[in-house]
């Protein structure tokens, strides 16, 4: 039976949604945060895994999205969804700008540039404390005025599903092919007719927009926002999620986010040791299983129910026909 894995995914998701209200408040919180990270890790994988653009400023965009939304809501009293949308637009514009500015930069230069950008954002947010409340934290309005976490859970799920839908469509279309061409060899891609410059800007804008969306949701879920959201440690955790899951596919990046967030909570007893442990895990994964730990599992899963003859696995995420131009 072809496509068995899709039915299984839909079934498991439906089951998870039905039984979500049974979760206790703590684990529901963990699930919400995991979904927040999943939006970030999948959009980072779009940028770094698919297009090979190693931005270390992804969490900075999340923090920009969060602060934009929180401050607009606070100053002008606009509805929170509108604020989040403004955050997304802000991140898209800034992301496109960053993409445009580093058009000529490759690999490490791009990483250094975005690292610099992230540090400037963090320093500015923590220094301008009469606007952002600095390290003391900015109190934000919560999206729902209830003590229950259930509405947040469903909102997070909706946002994640929407993001994955859009990113999945991008990846499966001709654009996905362009992205991979970009990663493998920019000059060859240019020669084959890929509009490299326009595309790099576009993908930066899109990925940053999703980061802004996640940041906006986070701001209005947690109720307090500090500049450390855009800091290096969280960026590193994001990289850990993508690398451990497998950053060249969206589902594995999402899986990585869930696994790592679960481990972060499950290992809470070890407190400070968690970050070094994940650091070692990242190094080992890079050294010995560079495709990620979840990728082989995912490939097996996708293959479920397929007969040997139809197992065109490698071409799964690549469009078969030129129908989507």
């Amino acid at each position, binding site marked *: 039976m072809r496509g068995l894995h899709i039915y299984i995914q839909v079934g498991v998701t439906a089951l998870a949604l039905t039984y979500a209200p049974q979760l206790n408040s703590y684990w529901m919180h963990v699930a919400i945060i995991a979904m927040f990270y999943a939006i970030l890790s999948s959009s980072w994988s779009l940028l770094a895994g698919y297009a090979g653009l190693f931005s270390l400023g992804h969490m900075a965009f999340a923090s920009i999205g969060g602060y934009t939304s929180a401050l607009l809501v606070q100053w002008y009293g606009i509805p929170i969804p509108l604020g989040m949308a403004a955050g997304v637009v802000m991140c898209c514009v800034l992301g496109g700008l960053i993409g445009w500015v580093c058009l000529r930069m490759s*690999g490490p230069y791009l*990483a250094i540039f975005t690292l610099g950008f992230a540090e400037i954002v963090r320093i500015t947010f923590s220094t301008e404390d009469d606007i952002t409340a600095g390290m003391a934290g900015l109190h934000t309005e919560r999206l729902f005025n209830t003590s229950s976490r259930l509405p947040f859970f469903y909102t997070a799920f909706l946002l994640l599903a929407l993001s994955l839908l859009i990113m999945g469509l991008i990846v499966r279309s001709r654009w996905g092919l362009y992205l991979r061409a970009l990663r493998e060899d920019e000059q060859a891609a240019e020669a084959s007719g890929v509009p490299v410059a326009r595309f790099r800007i576009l993908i930066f804008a899109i990925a940053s927009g999703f980061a802004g969306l996640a940041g906006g949701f986070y701001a209005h879920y947690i109720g307090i926002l500090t500049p450390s959201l855009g800091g290096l440690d969280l960026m590193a955790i994001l990289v850990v999620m993508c690398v451990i899951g497998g950053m060249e596919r969206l589902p594995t990046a999402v899986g990585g986010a869930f696994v790592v967030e679960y481990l972060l909570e499950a290992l809470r007893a070890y407190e400070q040791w968690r970050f070094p442990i994940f650091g070692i895990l990242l*190094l080992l994964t890079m050294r010995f299983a560079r495709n990620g730990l979840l990728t082989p599992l995912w490939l097996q899963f996708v293959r479920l129910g397929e007969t040997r003859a139809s197992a065109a696995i490698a071409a799964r995420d690549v469009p078969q026909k030129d129908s989507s131009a």
Partner: protein
Amino acid sequence: MNWDYLFVQVANGAVIGVIYALIAVGVTLIFSILKIVNFAHGDLYMLGGYCGYYIITLLAFPPLVAMFASMAVLFALGILLERSLLTPLYSDRTERKDEYGLIVTFGLAFFLRNIAIILFGPFPLKPPSFVPGVQHFGSFIVTNDRLFAGGFGIVIILALLYFMHRTIWGQALDAVSQSRDSAAIIGINAKRFNSLAFGIGAALAAGAGALIAPIFSLAPDMGVLPNIHAYVIVILGGMGSVAGSIIAGILLGESESLFTAFFPDPTRAFAYTNAFGVLVLMVVLIFRPQGLFGRRHLRME
């Protein structure tokens, strides 16, 4: 404008610039041989500082000896890290080496920074001075430690320059950086020089960390900003150019110091000084990615 104040700021800028240059020269050396940007360099600097601190406090060595010991320890650690983590960079089977080097060194930085919090504690530590006392300039003072750090930093840089230009190993390093294949043809074992370059880079960072420790205190995240500053310098001075790094290091130290002195809002001056360095980096990357003194064969593609 108070001239004494200006003079003190210029002196401070020069000292910080020399320290920055020490870190940046390591980044440049590692880049020119291994062709990767070491994102963990600031954390090696941090480890060097702590290593010196513990050698002074636990083994009761004099500070200067402790600095050399710390450089030796980090030299060994650098080689160990290079051997265990970076060898896939030299294999033809590894795809997209840039990406590998980037993620591994970024992960290493994350690991070192967080293990340091556990091992050394989150609170700042301060080792004893190299040379206690202060020098007076009008109504302002410069501590002897700053002068010592600047002076000894210059000595280390001169020693490195001598090593690079006047010894056979240094010349071999330069040969490997220019062309790995040609170096191999004339009998240079390039593998060994990968380790040597990373070890020297780590040792220089350790020296900088040990010199700076009595001036600013040691903290687990002290390496983050100097790391970025090292990139500013390396990119300003041109990737792979040791001399360029030294000039750019002092230039950056001076301009930051003067930026602090002239920034209108003193309560925010310090925070924005760090942002200023990063801003310089971004501007240079945009307008002159090959740097001011870049060597053509070392452009990153």
